[in-house]
């Protein structure tokens, strides 16, 4: 693969990765958010496969495929199951629509999008020393990974639905994995396996807790978690 074509494809994958994070901030329906997150997983896998193919490291290609399966297949499936539980007991003309839609985030959508723009600029500024240490096409795209980390944190903090917080946490994790791939072509295999396993278990735990939250509180609105305070 020629360097020019490799750089172009890498840039396209990174662009799609960042765009998916932005669209998560934009749409309201949780089913659409989960679908966009799956697309982001695919672009992350494409990124890893491109890097592995360029450096002729087939273990990296394998890791990329595994990551794609996990983050574009298994994790969205778990979240769809959680969504199905939330809407399972709705009446015929029920109002369960509020459960599957992010109705009123802490910061409204327009301001969130402008904040995402600021966070991208911040990520670019913060990542300059990282890029200057070793300038390659891959490390030049490091701001994308850091921007998705910041956007994930932002989603985690400002969204009201429990599942939106889970999506924010997963965006954070996707961004960190992308940073790892772009900076050093991935961390050692044992660590990568451990991280993937931990993320899978964390999402399982959060899915079970979402169900319990619905049973105990009747809603998955985070703002209703106000029992414990000083």
């Amino acid at each position, binding site marked *: 693969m020629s360097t020019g074509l490799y750089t172009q494809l890498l840039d396209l994958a990174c662009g799609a990765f960042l765009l998916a994070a932005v669209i998560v901030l934009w749409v309201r329906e949780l089913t659409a958010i989960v679908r966009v997150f799956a697309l982001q997983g695919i672009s992350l896998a494409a990124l890893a496969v491109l890097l592995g193919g360029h450096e002729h490291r087939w273990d990296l290609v394998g890791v990329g495929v595994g990551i794609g399966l996990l983050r574009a297949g298994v994790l969205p499936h778990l979240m769809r199951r959680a969504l199905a539980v939330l809407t399972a007991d709705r009446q015929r003309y029920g109002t369960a629509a509020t459960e599957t839609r992010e109705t009123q985030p802490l910061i409204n959508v327009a301001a969130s999008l402008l904040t*995402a723009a600021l966070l*991208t600029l911040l990520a*670019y500024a913060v990542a300059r020393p990282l890029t200057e240490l070793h300038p390659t096409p891959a490390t030049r795209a490091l701001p994308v990974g850091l921007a998705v980390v910041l956007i994930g944190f932002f989603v985690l903090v400002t969204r009201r639905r429990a599942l939106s917080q889970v999506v924010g946490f997963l965006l954070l994790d996707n961004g960190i994995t992308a940073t790892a791939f772009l900076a050093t072509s991935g961390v050692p295999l044992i660590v990568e396996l451990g991280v993937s396993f931990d993320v899978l278990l964390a999402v399982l735990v959060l899915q079970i807790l979402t169900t319990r939250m619905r049973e105990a509180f009747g809603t998955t609105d985070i703002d209703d978690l106000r029992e414990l305070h000083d």
Partner: protein
Amino acid sequence: MSTAVGYTAVAGQIVVVGAGAPLLTGWMRQVRARLEGRAGAGVLQPWRDARKLLRKEPISPVGTGPAFRTAPALLVATTVVAAALVPLLSTDTPVSGHADLIVVVALIALGTLVLALAGLDTGTAFGGMGASREMTVAALVEPTILLSVFALSIPAGTTNIPAIVHGAVDEPARLASPAGLLATAALAVAVLAETGRIPVDNPSTHLELTMIHEAMVLEYAGPDLALVELGAQMRLTLLLGLLSSLFVPWGIATSPSWAALAVALVLFAAKLTLLGAVLAAAEVFWAKVRLFRVPELLAGSFLLALLAVTASYFLSGAS
């Protein structure tokens, strides 16, 4: 010799935009009508409407001042100057050196501004309401247009629009980069907002809840209304032409030759016909977005433009 071709190109751009705008609007309305199962009024209907309006008595409401009276002429004038500058047919004209991105965007914004001032000048509730809504939209759209064309200017190294288009003709790979794609998306949404099409504004409604552009021009009648309509149609043609020049630049004459100019003319007409048809077909399926959701849409397109600019800084290797 070359300057003759150049001047012909400039004149040709003005004539095509001026005369072709009503045709384009008529074509778009016809496509929409056919898709909706209606017979449609025909492609030449906007010409017939203009002729009817021109024959009417010029009249203006009591209490309006120079802002109201000069707005239609100013609108058409700014659009004509912008049409001369933007490289629709050729990138090598005598005025190419002055065709800076910021000048063109400022001219388009000036057109928006004079119409809003006219709306305010009428003193009616609809005029003021339309003007304020238009300014809300413009506040987010102008930066978006600036940023998305700026994103394309970074690889070219200059903000001169003919130079950007020339560079894109030579290096098509630039347009397939993330910066190019994001800039396309952002500019498309911005063009829809600036020209008052669905999903931002419905050009054929007169309901108080929903009209933006129509509210500002509600008090115009006769030849003034004909000029205003022509100005709006010309702006649509110009912006669609800008979109096609930036993102589908092949066919534009880059050298001063009659043959290239002729080819450019034919291709320009074809591109705009296709673009207009696609836009009309899309409008059949889209719904207008509620007014308080419009800032969300525009903020999103602004973000895409900003991402295009930052992406062209760090994803293309430029620093």
